[in-house]
């Protein structure tokens, strides 16, 4: 069975999971976080005054058991699982498998070429395209990655923030849709001056997402209704609401029989960052700013401290005088607002008009992004970049090698499953458990590194 540390590790991105002794640990942890709220990796304070030897042994141990290594290994395993699927579905591989024992090299060669071609195309589409003729075209891939990452990061931040308050916000999808709807409406009905229009539309987007997020928060606080159920239901309601709105005169493009909105005014669009040759827009800067904001909110503000306290132990938080119900409502409003920003990135940056599929599956991917980022703002940012890269690369992969983009879903979900179960990854790679050896040295550091 897993140790308490494993529970910590596994439990952290999902604070809803009651841990053994959670009530006991709660207050202690809260004060520990208060004392050292900075982001942590290996090599944190607390190691001072120990012998050099002890230190380096400790460092190796920490690297081996750190979450970064686990994330990397999870990625490797996930790509391997994806590779097996790609190879299995490849016709040449299937052919070669027919005479596997006669000429095993054929089989291995065919499998290798199928898998490597697909992943090379994925890399070309996500990071740098060496095959393209011009430099501008080669770096288009990385700008595509950033464009796709933007809504993932923003919505992921929303999901992660709610996680930290132990709320499970499955509703990013609906919140994105409502944010996009509000922003789009402002974008094509109001005609405001340059500059003002963008700001007002963004604010409208935040408002839309925040309203949709407030509903589960309020219901949770007021009636105890489980936010998972309410947010799932609200996702569907949002989908039907937007598909209804898009056939009403207020939203439907004049003269069109399709359920699409008019194009947003140019004044309401995020400015393009690299000129008209690239899709990358200022929404990405918003995502960076939002990451910084959430980091500040969680780690430097009283409100964020309350969120974390409620997330770690609502009973202790209540005893300490924190209004738990209000924290639930507030955190969902902020989370919804962040997802609403993701909606603005979609409708005011990438798509430029509203459709029923405006949110694609960003809201669901945001959950995996938040999990992979371990509900840390910086982690979410990089997880968003990774999943954005997989997605952008997946499109190129599908176009060039015919490998369906669905493989990206497989890779993503395997990553998250493994990340959530560190003991499994350690078992696969025979790594030491984080608390196995230098136990005495760092109880507080472990807690911080993993919390």
């Amino acid at each position, binding site marked *: 069975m897993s140790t308490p540390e494993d529970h910590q590790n*596994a439990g952290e991105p999902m604070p809803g*999971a009651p841990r053994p002794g959670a009530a006991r640990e709660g207050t202690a942890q809260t004060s520990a976080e208060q004392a050292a709220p900075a982001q942590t990796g290996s090599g944190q304070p607390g190691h001072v005054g120990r012998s050099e030897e002890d230190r380096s042994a400790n460092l190796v141990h920490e690297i081996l058991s750190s979450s970064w290594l686990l994330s990397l290994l999870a990625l490797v395993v996930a790509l391997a699982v994806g590779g097996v*699927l790609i190879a299995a579905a490849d016709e040449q591989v299937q052919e070669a498998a027919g005479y596997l024992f006669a000429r095993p090299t054929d089989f291995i060669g065919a499998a290798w070429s199928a898998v490597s071609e697909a992943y090379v195309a994925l890399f070309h589409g996500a990071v740098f395209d060496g095959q393209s003729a011009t430099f501008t075209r080669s770096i288009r891939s990385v700008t595509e990655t950033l464009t796709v990452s933007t809504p993932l990061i923003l919505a992921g931040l929303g999901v992660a923030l709610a996680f930290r308050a132990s709320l499970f916000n499955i509703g990013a999808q609906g919140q994105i849709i409502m944010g996009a709807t509000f922003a789009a409406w402002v974008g094509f009905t109001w005609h405001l001056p340059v500059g003002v229009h963008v700001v007002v539309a963004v604010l409208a987007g935040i408002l839309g997402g925040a309203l949709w997020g407030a509903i589960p928060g309020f219901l949770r606080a007021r009636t105890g209704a489980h936010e998972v*159920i309410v947010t799932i*239901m*609200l996702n569907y309601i949002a989908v039907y609401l937007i598909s209804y709105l898009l056939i009403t005169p207020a939203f439907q493009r004049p003269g069109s029989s399709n359920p699409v909105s008019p194009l947003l005014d140019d004044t309401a669009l995020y400015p393009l960052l690299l000129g008209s040759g690239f899709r990358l827009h200022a929404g990405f800067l918003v995502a960076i700013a939002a990451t910084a904001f959430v980091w500040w909110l969680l780690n430097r503000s009283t409100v964020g401290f309350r969120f974390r306290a409620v997330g770690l132990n609502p009973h202790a938080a209540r005893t300490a005088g924190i209004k738990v119900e209000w924290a639930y409502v507030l955190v969902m409003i902020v989370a919804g607002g962040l997802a609403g920003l993701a909606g603005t990135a979609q409708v005011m940056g990438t798509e430029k008009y509203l459709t029923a599929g405006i949110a694609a599956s960003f809201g*669901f991917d945001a*959950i995996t992004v938040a999990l992979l980022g371990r509900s840390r703002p910086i982690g979410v940012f990089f997880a968003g970049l990774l999943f954005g890269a997989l997605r952008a690369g997946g499109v190129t992969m599908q176009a060039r090698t015919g490998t369906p983009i669905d493989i990206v879903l*497989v890779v993503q*979900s395997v990553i998250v499953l493994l990340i959530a179960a560190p003991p499994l990854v350690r078992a696969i790679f025979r790594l030491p458990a984080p608390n196995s050896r230098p136990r005495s040295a760092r109880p507080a550091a472990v807690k911080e590194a993993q919390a």
Partner: protein
Amino acid sequence: MSTVTAPTQGAASQGAVGGSTPGSRKAPITYAVLGLFALVVFGLLGQPGSSTFSVSTRTDLFQITPIGVPSRLTAIVLALVCLGLAAFAALRAKEGRRTPGWVAGTFAAAFVLAFLTWAVAGESIPFTGLLQGTLFLAVPLVFGALSGVMCERVGVINIAIEGQLLAGAFLAAVAASLSGNVYAGLIAAPIAGVLVALLLAVFTITYAVNQIIVGVVLNVLVVGVTGFLYSTVLTVNASSWNQPPGLQRIAIPLLSEIPVLGPVLFRQNLIVYLMYAAVIVANIALFRSKWGLRVRAVGEHPRAADTVGIKVNATRFKNVLLGGAIAGLGGAFFTIGAGLAFGKEMTAGKGYIALAAMIFGRWSPKGALGAALLFGFAEQLRISLGIVGTGIPSQFMLMTPYLVTIFAVAGLVGRVRPPAANGTHYAKS
């Protein structure tokens, strides 16, 4: 807008079945408001003319001529029945007694009929077809909700119902196509569901990962794997991989000749009959057997269950797998049950509606059946009325199950309470 919320609330009132606390005034007030609404909107403001319900199918032994009723008068009468029930419920509440369950059921039936009469004024609607469609749409929901009941009664939240349905649909289609035998598909489907459930069980029970996370991620995984295989294998060589034979309809002699109910209930395929059996068996097993008592003990108070010698995690493991098998079988209904080839993401969120049905049915098989039928009815109504044409946008009809569920979990209609240990990991101390 007000016309749009009507079916929602009508349906919502069913949630109060057995859930009204003695002396509560909430239910009678809801009934009265809805009754008045029906009287005014469906009755007094309704269109004159007649509403026709055809009840017999062409192959029936006993032919019944379509029933045509004057729309407004019928709606008014039904609305008055609603108001009468409201008065009865108010009387019971005043005496501090519990309102019997049949009141809510009758009320809902009368309200929905009033709504139907109003909606099809001047038109005709095949009543039997409506019910047949309801059952057809409800079957996967019932299996999914049953799977949820099995898992959540032992304290494991099963968000992966969607994935289990999809996996079942996929493997049923593939197995039936490859073997050419529809029953191979029927056996393969539960296996697919069990495989997904196995992942759920290993990660949540063995590795103590949060149950909701695993569920959500498993759904993505199944969508990814089935979507990938569909695009690469199933479409490339569709004739051998994805042309499953469909299950035959089996008409049960005698029973299938009962007017209205016969064609609806007893001219179905094997999966539907299995569904009847599953609901009955699950209900009896959960609430009337030693096994059920143990299962519920694990879900309510695992430590107490452990103390008396019940193996908590083993029970959970078994039940999660059982739930997976049930959902997988339900998934088969999408492909071999309906005689269709597998399509990408063909379950289209039905797993989540099943989850809602389970909650709305208060974590009991019987309730899940009722809720699933209700949700199926809402969707079938949208399809039928889409043909007849009413003023209600179809999107709002589609929203109904979700709105109703939010009302239910928020406690606006009765109170739903999950098993106490739901979602928690149990570690022996």
